[in-house]
């Protein structure tokens, strides 16, 4: 007889597996849906373009949007060259050996450190020790701290992208008499670019999500940042501070909606870049 024997326990387990997976999706939809529904009504042109009033419990979030943009831009500006450069060095200039192992170990360790520890470090190093250069709590201090945090992600993503470039490209270029740097710059990097870009986009996402480390380094000023040596506040920080300190949940939810929109955009872009990478390497 080749019909399925009915086993209660098996059906139960099967049901549990299905339920778990769909519950995971349901939770996501519920969280996002709830915040969007609650906050949507509060997001309008005024909210996006006005200054906050009364500690942010009223008014808009314009300076915070600008602060976030400055912060992200500055972070990527320092993190991208450092991360990609490290990846190039590890992948192109060294053979697997002691040095690479130590450097890779170091950057991997960074990935496991909690963000609040980065915050403490950023405070002690960038805010206090380098006060004369960073002006204490400032966009510079915050961005440099965030740079330390997203570096592991960037290095790993870039290394993986570099590894997808076929060896035959490098050999073809070298055999034509190109030197190593020319080969990297003109052949390897362009081929790895989609992957590296995906890594950078995901790092932007991480920088936008970060809050704890920035509480200790970015200051949290509600004013429009006049320069990179002034304090600022990112959207995540604003959401937290408004919710916890003023208790005005409308503004918190409104900020949450803007934040979610940005994260969705980033995820969409990153996936698009991955698709492009796959399409091109085919």
């Amino acid at each position, binding site marked *: 007889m080749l019909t399925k024997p009915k086993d209660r326990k*098996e059906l139960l387990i099967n049901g549990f*597996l299905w339920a*778990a*997976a769909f*519950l*995971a*999706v349901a*939770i*996501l939809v519920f969280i*996002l849906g709830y*915040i969007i529904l609650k906050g949507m009504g509060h997001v309008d042109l005024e909210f996006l373009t006005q200054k906050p009033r009364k500690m942010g419990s009223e008014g808009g979030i314009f300076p915070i949007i600008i602060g976030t943009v400055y912060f992200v831009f500055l972070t990527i500006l320092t993190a991208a060259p*450092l*991360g990609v*450069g*490290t990846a190039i*060095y*590890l992948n192109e*200039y060294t053979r697997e050996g002691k040095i690479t192992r*130590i*450097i890779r170990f*170091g*950057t991997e*360790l*960074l990935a*496991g*450190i*909690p*963000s*609040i*520890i980065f915050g*403490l*470090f950023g*405070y*002690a190093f960038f805010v206090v020790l380098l006060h004369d250069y960073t002006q204490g709590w400032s966009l510079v201090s915050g961005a440099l701290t965030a740079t*330390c945090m997203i*570096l592991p992600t960037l*290095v790993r993503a870039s290394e993986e992208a570099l590894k997808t470039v076929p060896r035959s490209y490098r050999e073809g270029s070298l055999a034509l008499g190109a*030197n*190593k*740097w*020319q080969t*990297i710059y003109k052949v390897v990097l362009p081929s790895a670019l989609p992957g590296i870009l995906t890594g950078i986009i*995901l790092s932007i996402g991480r920088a*936008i*999500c*970060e*809050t*704890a480390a920035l*509480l*200790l380094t970015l200051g949290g000023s509600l004013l429009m940042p006049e320069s990179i040596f002034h304090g600022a506040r990112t959207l*995540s920080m604003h*959401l*937290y501070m408004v*919710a916890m300190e003023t208790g005005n949940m409308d503004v918190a939810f409104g900020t*949450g909606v803007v*934040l*979610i929109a940005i*994260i*969705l955009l980033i*995820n969409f872009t990153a996936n698009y870049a991955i698709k492009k990478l796959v399409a091109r390497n085919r």
Partner: protein
Amino acid sequence: MKKLNKPCRISQLSDKIAKPLLFGMALTAFSITVLIAFFIFQQGLPVLGEYGIWNILTGKSWRPTEGIYGILPMIAGTFYVTFLALAIGVPFGLATAVFLAELATEKTARIIRPAIELLAGIPSVIYGLFGMVVINEAMRFIEREILAGVLPPEYRWGYSILSGGMVLAIMILPTIINISEDAIRAVPRSYKEGALALGSSHIQTILQVILPSAKSGIISAVILAMGRALGETMALIMVIGNVPMLPRHGILSLFAPAATLTGTIALEMGYAGPEHRAALFMIGVVLFCIIALLNSFAMAATRRGVGK
């Protein structure tokens, strides 16, 4: 006959410069780790020395304004919340991973996987906000309407270890799902086929062959998730109440408000005076050591997995 000697050109120069420059970048990336360890310890160790490691680790009260720095309540809070999150998140995440690797059709997986990815990309503060408004509201209802008779009065305002555990469980899901799914997929096909050929059902095969073979990968998923949970700051600040007190009502302590190591640092750095600040760095040292210990477990686990 052309000579094979070096031509001198700019491209030659940039090739020469590239290597040391890139090495410098790699070295910078590496030295950040060293710098972090150095600064945390330099700032935090004196306090540990002054008050004694034992006094601090077992001290039951945290009154920084009076110079009393016992962090046992925060250690307890951190671990309660973490274990609760693992207790909820691991079975849930593992089930989802098994589903994705073994049961889901390509089409279903295409819906679930991006959702998991997105779950990982949502800022902690969003989870915190959700927990603060939705979960804590529900908790408050339970505490005040259903369990009002049994709960002490200070356990009735929603902010609780249980809320923290639930929020954290959601946050560590992506880590558990992604890493265990990879581990499950890495189990050689032949194991599975062998079991199926012997007449095991699919579910039996999963339970008896696939999961045991993927064990070391699943363990590292749990350890990594634990690392994330121990380090989480913002979402917990927003839901657990930040009260540095040891809960002492047995199972009812699930409803107790608590504080975490990370949250204390984040909340108090803003207004702390010099010595208080040093004490917060000392908490950083403790956290750093816990994470380092955990990482060495993780490494030992993966090494054993590789050796097998």
